């Protein structure tokens, strides 16, 4: 759905239909011909608005769903799905999921064990693309989450006793399935970006989904 073309196409169709009816009543054949040509154009623009979709988006959605299922299965089998700690390690830009807090430096990408504690470390390469600009975390997250990825409509950040609360307001329907999946990529993104901005490792404290608002609370690991 492409709203801009939906409105444009609708307007073109309405105007051309009115002009066609007028030319039929008055009997100006040239205007009728131009109206019919415009009507065809309007229908094409309207259809563009209704059915437009980037060809690879659906493929990537399927791919990420399948990948999400695979990673969920790995987490489930290793007992990490129910009670797990999420920690962003800034040294390698990775997110480590483990049953107990583990030392970032002892982990490497992929599945492994540190002091008999299983962990899964996933890359956060996407964060590398976004240079830290300004000195406000809220503005930084807004720029990327709203401006670039269109994840939600508004972002709010509250700092309370060393804990950060990031609130994503009105998360889009297309993004909601990602938030609800066990491998919540929005969580990765928020934690990764925040870690980069704060230049420190982070640990997820809790998260909550209230209606279409997604709340993530995390703390800086020293």
């Amino acid at each position: 759905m492409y709203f801009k073309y939906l409105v444009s196409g609708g307007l073109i169709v309405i105007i051309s239909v009115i002009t066609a009816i007028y030319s039929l009543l008055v009997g100006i054949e040239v205007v009728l011909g131009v109206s019919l040509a415009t009507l065809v154009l309007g229908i094409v623009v309207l259809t563009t608005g209704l059915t437009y979709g980037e060809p690879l988006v659906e493929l990537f959605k399927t791919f990420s769903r399948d990948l999400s299922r695979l990673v969920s299965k790995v987490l489930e089998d290793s007992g990490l799905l129910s009670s797990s700690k999420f920690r962003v390690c800034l040294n390698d830009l990775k997110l480590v999921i483990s049953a107990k807090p583990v030392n970032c430096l002892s982990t490497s990408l992929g599945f492994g064990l540190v002091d008999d504690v299983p962990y899964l470390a996933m890359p956060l390469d996407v964060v590398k693309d976004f240079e830290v600009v300004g000195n406000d975390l809220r503005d930084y997250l807004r720029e990327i989450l709203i401006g670039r990825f269109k994840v939600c409509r508004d972002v709010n950040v509250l700092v309370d006793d060393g804990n950060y609360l990031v609130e994503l307001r009105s998360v889009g329907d297309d993004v909601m399935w990602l938030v609800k999946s066990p491998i919540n990529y929005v969580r990765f993104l928020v934690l990764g970006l925040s870690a980069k901005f704060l230049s420190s490792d982070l640990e997820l404290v809790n998260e909550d989904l209230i209606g279409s608002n997604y709340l993530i609370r995390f703390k800086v690991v020293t």
Partner: protein
Amino acid sequence: MIERDVILLTILVVTAVSMLAYVGELRPDAYLAITILIYFIYTSVNYGFRFRVNLKFIDASLIITFALIVGYRVYEVIK
């Protein structure tokens, strides 16, 4: 990308319709037939447009319209 496709199609249709009006073409079906032809030629040449937009319904509708126009003109000649 899609913006460019729509603008190009619009330019082509507007140019063709302007030329028809300029030469004094009065038959409304001629305008419609030329627009339909431009649509099919453009979407065949620029196939990326078809990848992004589902045009099946329009294709069917416009082919039927074009066939009716041609059929009517043939009937007029035969009659």
